[in-house]
């Protein structure tokens, strides 16, 4: 009888089925997360297991380090720059891909490619595209008569940042477009028709009716875009390796260089902790959106 009783206890079954997932998340995400913060206050190295409290030593060291300052600035510039580009392009692309036209399925397949390809493989392809000798971009610009000198895409600090922004925008665009499309599809048709009946043209409809309604969805796209861009290691690591002369590091690549390659776990952790402000902003915004959606659903 008791076995049957347990088999019908929803609370017991619920806890048992949830437990492995919860355990995995707590032990292998939660604990390491706090360990990352703890390590940032220590002088731990990869070589030995012993470590001592270092207070704000690591933070003092990196904040006074011009390479870190530059990496922090680059992280902000790349994230803001690429996401600004993505918002504009994704809104435009969604307007195109909501229409029906011949070959749309194929066009959509091509549009989605950058999201499907592994970051590291996309980055190596772009490294080849930006090659100092064989860059096909340079050839095309030269053949079109637009370029007279030469562009060393990955050899010049400013141009390298532009290249990084282009690649980040390129790889996030499909994701953002598809999310905005999903948002467009969920706008009630009556509202759009009412606007048309009232004589609103395409632009008026876009800016005064659709975009305000799309705001929550565009926000979701941007939030994920921010997380993907600010925390990405692969693009910069492969494209420039932080060079030339440490000018294009972002927080993840510098954390990797110091913490893993340089074996200074404390400093690596401290650099990575500076990703937290990006993530906290995103998490708070998401929670607000989710609450609004909950209220709206009632």
């Amino acid at each position: 009888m008791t076995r049957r009783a347990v088999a019908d206890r929803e609370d017991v079954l619920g806890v048992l089925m949830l437990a492995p997932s919860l355990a995995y998340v707590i032990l292998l995400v939660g604990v390491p997360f706090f360990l990352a913060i703890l390590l940032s206050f220590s002088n731990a190295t990869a070589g030995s297991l012993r470590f001592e409290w270092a207070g704000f030593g690591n933070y003092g060291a990196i904040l006074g380090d011009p390479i870190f300052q530059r990496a922090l600035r680059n992280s902000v510039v790349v994230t803001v720059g690429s996401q600004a580009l993505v918002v504009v392009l994704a809104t435009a692309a969604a307007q195109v891909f909501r229409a029906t036209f011949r070959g749309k399925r194929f066009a959509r397949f091509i549009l989605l490619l950058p999201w499907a390809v592994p970051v590291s493989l996309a980055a190596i392809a772009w490294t080849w595209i930006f090659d100092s000798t064989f860059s096909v971009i340079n050839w095309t610009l030269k053949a079109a008569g637009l370029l007279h000198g030469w562009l060393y895409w990955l050899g010049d600090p400013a141009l390298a940042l532009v290249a990084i922004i282009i690649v980040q925008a390129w790889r996030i665009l499909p994701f953002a477009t598809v999310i905005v499309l999903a948002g467009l599809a969920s706008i009630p048709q009556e509202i759009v028709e009412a606007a048309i009946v009232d004589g609103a043209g395409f632009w008026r409809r876009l800016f005064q009716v659709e975009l305000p309604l799309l705001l929550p969805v565009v926000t979701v796209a941007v939030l994920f875009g921010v997380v993907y861009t600010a925390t990405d290691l692969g693009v910069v690591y492969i494209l420039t390796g932080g060079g030339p002369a440490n000018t294009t590091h972002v927080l993840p690549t510098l954390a990797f260089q110091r913490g893993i390659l340089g074996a200074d776990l404390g400093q690596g952790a401290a650099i990575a902790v500076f990703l937290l402000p990006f993530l906290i902003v995103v998490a708070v915004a998401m929670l607000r959106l989710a609450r609004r959606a909950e209220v709206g659903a009632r």
Partner: protein
Amino acid sequence: MKRVALYAAALGFMVFAGFPFYWMLVTTFKQNRDLYVGASDVSHIPWIFNDPPTLDHVRLLFGETEFPRWVLNTLIVVVAVVVITVAVAVPAGYSLARLAGRWGERMGMGIFFTYLIPPTLLFVPFSRLVALLGLHNSLGALILIYPTMTIPFCTWLVMGFLRSVPWEIEEQAMIDGYSRLAVILRVAPRLIVPGILTVVVFTFTLVMQEFVYALTFISSVEKMTISLGVPIALVRGDVYHWGSLMAAALFTSIPLAIVYNLFIDRFIQGFTMGAVKG
């Protein structure tokens, strides 16, 4: 006129998104003397085949590099991580959707939020943990750590998926005398199959794409996965073999692109949460 603008815009987006893949394709099958002509030579058009295409780079990739080994390693990790993820995330998603009552949604969101904690924040403590467990430079490290990325998202996916499955079938089974446990074991699995398929596909794509943890934990060439080995170890001495590199990128992208096309809408439902209704 409006149609022309539409096609022009669609074409523009296709060129921006697709041209690196076209460039992979061209590079893969070009002969070296056609490939390595400096871009300052305007008379030599790099966008087309000036010499007949060749399979040399493909032959080199499969015959003389570790690429086949990396494919095998990647598949081993994919299978192991899929098994772990399905075994852990599917029951959890069911629990949150059907058994947890009011706090299911909140709990699900809490688990989902851990998906936002990035590998680049965790790789430092993980490098310590992996060394302690003796898993450094082994596929075991990847098999242990990758589920930290798949489980949160997949738990959320399964929960959301079950919300859209009517409760009546399970209810009827209980009226017919099944215990709650029997419903879970015998009735629910059939209902969740499409959800499980999405979980498998998401896990497959994530493992194929992951780079940060692989770079942190794996140091010897024969243990690498595709996404790590191709950009890091497919370089001989200082020489990049661009033909073979692009061949590897191309052949890896194709299956992923096809899978993404089929499952994109399901993934998107997971990402947009409550922000999109309908």
